Structure formats: structure tokens, C-alpha cells
């Protein structure tokens, strides 16, 4: 039987306090020597004179979580990690708020940093998440990852 994949999605922005909690939760793992963290923050991009004030994220959640599970397996094969945690927001996230959180821990720094980078790049490329950039005033545009 296939086990249900982890759910990476959280409703709304990721609070900064989440970082403190994640780190504190790993301080009894005394084989960890390094944590590497990536955070995505919603940017007030200006596009044709209009300014983004929020991104509304949606996802094909079942496929997203299955794809994430595959990426996670690749990461644990490629890198010597102690643990890894990934969260992505759904719903409307205002500029300045966090929408993406990757946290990896390892004995060795290079493994953690490389794993975080792999997670970030592969998730952006392969996980079906969609972003509607809402402009100040009115109007929107669909975000495309570069």
C-alpha cells in the first residue's frame, strides 16, 4: 500500500515564529551540525506601472504533494541529511509575507546547503503551484517562474 504523502501546504502566510520553532525542535538532535533555510517572500514587483500587493496561491494539491514526495526521496538519496521540512502557502499572501519555507539539517554544512538549493529549484520547476499576482487598485497577472 502506498503511504499518503506529506502535505506541504499551509493556509495563509508562514509566520516568522515558525523558524524559531523549527530550529528549537532540532536542538536535541546532537548529530546535527548545520541547518540551511530558504524563505520565499512576496515581492512588490512593478509590472507596466502597476504594483503587486499580494499573490493568491493555488495548487493541484494531490499532484503537488505526490511530486514533492518524489523530490524528497531524491534529496535523501543525493544528500546526507538528518531531516527536511518544506511548507508552501495557499491563499492570498500580502507583500512582505513568507510563502515558501525550506528547512534542512545535516551533520555537514555542504550537504544541507546543497539539499536546500535542490529542494528550491525542483519545487519551483516541478510542483504544480499557481500564483495570481494581485495589483494595487485592480487587475491581476498570472505569475510564471523564471
Amino acid at each position, binding site marked *: 500500500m502506498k503511504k499518503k504523502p506529506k502535505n506541504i501546504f499551509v493556509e495563509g502566510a508562514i509566520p516568522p515564529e515558525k523558524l524559531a520553532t523549527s530550529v528549537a525542535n532540532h536542538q536535541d538532535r546532537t548529530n546535527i551540525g548545520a541547518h540551511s533555510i530558504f524563505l*520565499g517572500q512576496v515581492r512588490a514587483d512593478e509590472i507596466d506601472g502597476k504594483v503587486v500587493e499580494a*499573490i493568491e*496561491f*493555488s*495548487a*493541484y494539491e*494531490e*499532484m*503537488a504533494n*505526490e*511530486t514533492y514526495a518524489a523530490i524528497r526521496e531524491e534529496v535523501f538519496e543525493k544528500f546526507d541529511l538528518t531531516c527536511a521540512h518544506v511548507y*508552501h502557502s495557499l491563499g492570498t499572501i500580502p507583500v512582505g509575507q513568507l*510563502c*515558501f519555507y525550506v528547512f534542512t539539517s545535516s551533520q555537514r554544512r555542504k550537504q544541507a546547503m546543497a539539499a536546500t538549493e535542490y529542494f*528550491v529549484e525542483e*519545487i*519551483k*520547476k*516541478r*510542483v*504544480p*503551484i*499557481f*500564483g*495570481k499576482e494581485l495589483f494595487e487598485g485592480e487587475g491581476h497577472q*498570472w*505569475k*510564471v*517562474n523564471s
Partner: protein
Amino acid sequence: MVRITMYYFGLIAEKAGVATEQLELLQGADVESVHQALQERYPSLQSDSYQVSVNRKICTNGPVSEGDEVAILPPFAGG
């Protein structure tokens, strides 16, 4: 006939005006038939780039069978 469930996301859902619907394709349908049915149903999608997933895996070709979960995915924007 092959009955499949279509799921639309982002820009595609916006243009289609629905998030999900049932489609009936002819026997022997494949990913190419999905493209054709879609363009016919929603001509405004012609200029858009999207990928097709069948049962949650990206597919560029191959058969589509009764009961399949087929999604039309605009460019990803996670992160």
C-alpha cells in the same frame, strides 16, 4: 466513449470558467485528443502554454483511459 475528469488551474481555470468537468472522448483517445478537445471547447486557450497531466503525472503523449484524472496546468509559480 472514454469518460475522463478534467481539472483546470490558474489562468486556464479562469479562461474555462470552471475548475473541473467531465469530458467524453472517442475510444482510443490520447493526450493529443485532449489537446484537440480543449482547443475546440475553449478557443481562447490557443495562445497559452500549458502542460497536461494524466493521473497526476505530466504526459506529453500516450493513451487516456476511462476514469482518468486529467489536468491542464499553466506555468508553475511556486516558491
